[in-house]
């Protein structure tokens, strides 16, 4: 008899919806259907049963083809690579559990790795900004229960966080927001008229790359100072009008995304948005939140935070200290500058998401990729170690975009003999210990 697994956590985006219902086959091996998830989340669960999944590690042969090898062989190769390399990029972590990350960090500390997560090409800019000016924020339930002014700035939840608007930000009725959507004023600031913009009461079309100037104009307007006639293509009248509306609210929130983090000035755009938020607290209650992408990229920042004190780009290469300098110890910079000798990727696909010049640099170095599926990175790696899908075939702790920790659930069994991230990392850790005890690779 098929059965329903309830309260399942969706391991796709930082919204970390926890109300998904997954129907699984009687033998716990196959996912039959998925309820409550968005299109992307449902696809992730469904991928579990797609044919053609790689079930054993593969190693690239001299002729460029891949040959299946045992887990032990792949793990031995990986451990030797790590022990030999003087500086290794250990990138990814955003799609695995906090428990797995911890083991990874232990390995990095022994072999001199640089641990970086997907924030590096995503909300890294936001983390820099928060390091610089802090961040007044809240949990998503606060937004649902209190917010009456909601701004989406350079983010497009309709595409990237599909259930965000219905669960937290636009439509839900909360304790002090009994009118739901009707009680909220929704603003969208973007260079495109996105599907999110279509849900907004007010759309402000900013010229691409002028967010910093526009945010500065908002702050200038909030202080009652003069403005030029237009800023970033937006007339000053509009800016004054919106600022007054925001001041008139009881609880305002700015959600922002890649439109700020990737655009010219990067961290400064967020920095200025945070400062605007801070200023608005002189008039009413205002908070701001990053729309974190990967479901557990926040978790990686948290674990690195409590173990080393930095949220990403943590350089343990000297083994006697932890360092962090965005622009130096960040993955793309390390690859651009050929600062590392080997690459270790886990739970990520830089091959698809890094600029090609960084990946060309990566492809010239010994590389191991640990990922459930074949992707653009596995196919330029020396070794691909497939693992169980975290959040589908194995549980583990994850952190939502508002840093709320939620335990993901196992809903089905992984393919027979398939190891989990935690198991693979533990084996690598043990093998590294053996090699180091013998004095190296």
């Amino acid at each position: 008899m098929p059965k329903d697994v309830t309260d399942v956590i969706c391991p796709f985006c930082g919204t970390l919806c926890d109300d998904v219902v997954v129907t699984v086959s009687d033998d716990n091996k196959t996912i039959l259907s998925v309820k409550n998830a968005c299109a992307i989340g449902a696809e992730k669960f469904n991928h579990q049963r797609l044919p053609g999944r790689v079930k054993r590690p593969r190693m690239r042969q001299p002729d460029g083809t891949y040959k299946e090898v045992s887990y032990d062989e792949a793990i031995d190769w990986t451990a030797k690579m790590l022990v030999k390399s003087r500086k290794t990029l250990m990138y990814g972590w955003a799609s695995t559990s906090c428990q797995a990350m911890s083991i990874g960090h232990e390995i990095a500390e022994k072999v001199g790795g640089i641990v970086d997560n997907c924030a590096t090409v995503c909300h890294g800019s936001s983390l820099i900004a928060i390091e610089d000016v802090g961040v007044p924020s809240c949990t998503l339930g606060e937004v649902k229960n209190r917010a009456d002014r909601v701004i989406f700035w350079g983010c497009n939840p309709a595409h990237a966080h599909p259930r965000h608007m219905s669960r937290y930000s636009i439509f839900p009725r909360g304790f002090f927001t009994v009118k739901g959507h009707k009680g909220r004023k929704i603003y969208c600031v973007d260079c495109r008229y996105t599907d999110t913009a279509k849900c907004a009461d007010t759309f402000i079309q900013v010229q691409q790359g002028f967010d910093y100037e526009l945010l500065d104009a908002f702050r200038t307007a909030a202080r009652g100072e003069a403005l030029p006639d237009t800023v970033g293509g937006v007339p000053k009248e509009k800016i004054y009008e919106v600022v007054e509306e925001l001041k008139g609210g009881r609880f305002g929130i700015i959600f922002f995304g890649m439109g700020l983090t990737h655009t010219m000035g990067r961290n400064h755009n967020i920095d200025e948005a945070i400062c605007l938020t801070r200023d608005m607290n002189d008039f009413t209650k205002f908070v701001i939140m990053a729309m974190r992408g990967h479901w557990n990229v926040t978790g990686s920042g948290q674990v690195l935070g409590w173990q080393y004190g930095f949220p990403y780009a943590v350089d343990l290469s000297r083994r006697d200290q932890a360092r962090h300098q965005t622009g130096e110890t960040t993955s793309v910079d390390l690859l651009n500058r050929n600062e590392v000798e080997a690459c270790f990727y886990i739970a990520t696909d830089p091959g698809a998401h890094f600029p090609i010049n960084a990946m060309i640099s990566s492809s010239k170095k010994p590389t191991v990729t640990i990922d459930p599926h074949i992707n653009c990175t596995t196919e330029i790696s020396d070794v691909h170690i497939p693992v169980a899908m975290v959040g589908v075939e194995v549980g583990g702790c994850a952190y939502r975009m508002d840093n709320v920790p939620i335990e993901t659930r196992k809903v089905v069994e992984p393919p027979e003999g398939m190891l989990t991230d935690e198991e693979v990392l533990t084996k690598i850790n043990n093998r590294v210990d053996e090699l180091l005890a013998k004095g190296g690779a």
Partner: protein
Amino acid sequence: MSEYIIKNGHVFDPVQGIKGDKKDIAVKDGKIVEKVSSSAKVIDAKDKTVMAGALEVHAHVAGPKVNAGRWYRPEDKHFDSHKKPGITRIEGGKSIPTVFKTGYEYARMGFTFAMEAAMPPLYARHVHEEIHDTPIIDEAALPVLGNNWFIMEYLKNNEVENTAAYISWLMRQTKGYGVKVVNPGGTEAWAWGLNCLTIHDPVPYFDITPAEIMTGLMTANEYLGLPHSMHVHQNDLGNPGNYKTTIETLQLAEGVKPKNTFGREQVMHSTHLQFHSYKGTNWGDFESAAKEVMDYVNKQKNITIDTGNVTLDETTTMTADGPFEHHLHGLNHLKWFNVDVELETAAGVVPYIYDPNISVCAKQWCIGLEIALMAKDPMRCFITTDHPNAGPFTRYPRVYSWLMSKKVRDERLNTFKNADKVIGATYLANIDREITLYELAQMTRAGPAKCLGLMKDYGGLKAGMNADIAIYDINPDKFPSDGPAIEKAFGNAAYLFKDGRICVEGGKVVDMGQKKTFWVDAKVPENKQVMHDVREKFLRYYSVNENNYPVPESYAPHQHIITVDATKA
């Protein structure tokens, strides 16, 4: 398990009333015993001081705001991240050490237990993840309840039983230890950008006052018979003139009787009292009110306090008192972190520099020391830095040196830039008292253990208690006269036994021990109303499902559950 006998040491144990006498301490199977076999390993403690392991009664060492303070301050560890030789991991952070450094440093100073002072229930899993990764020391965490919607709604109608049932449910969900209150009502008001600065300010919408919240929680706490009392961070923290509110709050305990099986005698623990003992009307005429506050504390036996000593460092303030952090940011303009937590609480973080050249900071330093030095009963006054708010806990040895040597603290006092002004606004210059080793053992061992309801196992060296033992290179007959020597001795335990295992030797961590997580399972009669309310709130107002809220036991692999039974209350 191995046996040890600690010989020839000067033992200070308030539990047995031993004041520096030479006494052998025997250890077997993790406990202190009357005697051990002849094969026991001998530890020579000649010319050394032997005490029980110390207990931290109030520190922010694990959880979301602590970690925010860590990762948003890379500058706090850019030149302060090192690996020491041996089995330890990399240790980083000055004002907010990483979890590894936290465990090691407490152990090196002779501590074996630390209470995380503020756990937002929705973030309990995070707190436990960090506790799990903190080596050696035992830990527990206090869920914050003073701005919780359930609590405010029940107490508005004086529903003590429902309040107690909810607390019981919440402690089980969060693996929590007791009842923490931070700026009652004020933090909920902060969700609208407001605050409650007196204990009679009504909480917006909830139609209840901070005084009613505290009285209700004290009653519920005793109804349940929890090991610890209500633990309160009062309203109006850190503002000149707040001492009146402080005394008024303490007065709420008058007539409330402790009811528990743990030997606890207080019904209210008022934390970091230094921040609440200010006279004056602004930062210009700001003065110490330590005398006024301590006169009250000394005569009111059912309250305990801790100091919150300013250590004169660059540090990171962090508290569930959201409006206070916003206020502080307005004063120093340094980076402000804030998170409001749905239905429960909030937290803020702001870096702060306690600059000895600024007289306000110097006065705060005086007030913290005055509170400890004016305390008549060292079993009710505990030394803290409200880590990291008044300074990092790693400065305890320095705080001890100021408390234990008038010479050392007067040297500091007299060299402040505005020494005359500081001395004129405080009492410290006229205080001659020096805390003795025995009093220190009361203030850092026996006292906090009793206050936390842990006196059966912690805080003393009596047979049957945990073999948590700190041995310091201090000869009581030749107590060091200079500050650095005192600091060195207290900062580098000659030995630390944790559950009968030597974890620190010669100031060096040699064993990770087997740390335990404590939590309290309070049994109450089945309460359908509360369970209905819980379901309702999760369905309608929380952003997570009820089934994803609890912290599973796997997060506390060596859990120690204290069970209380309030089913017949």
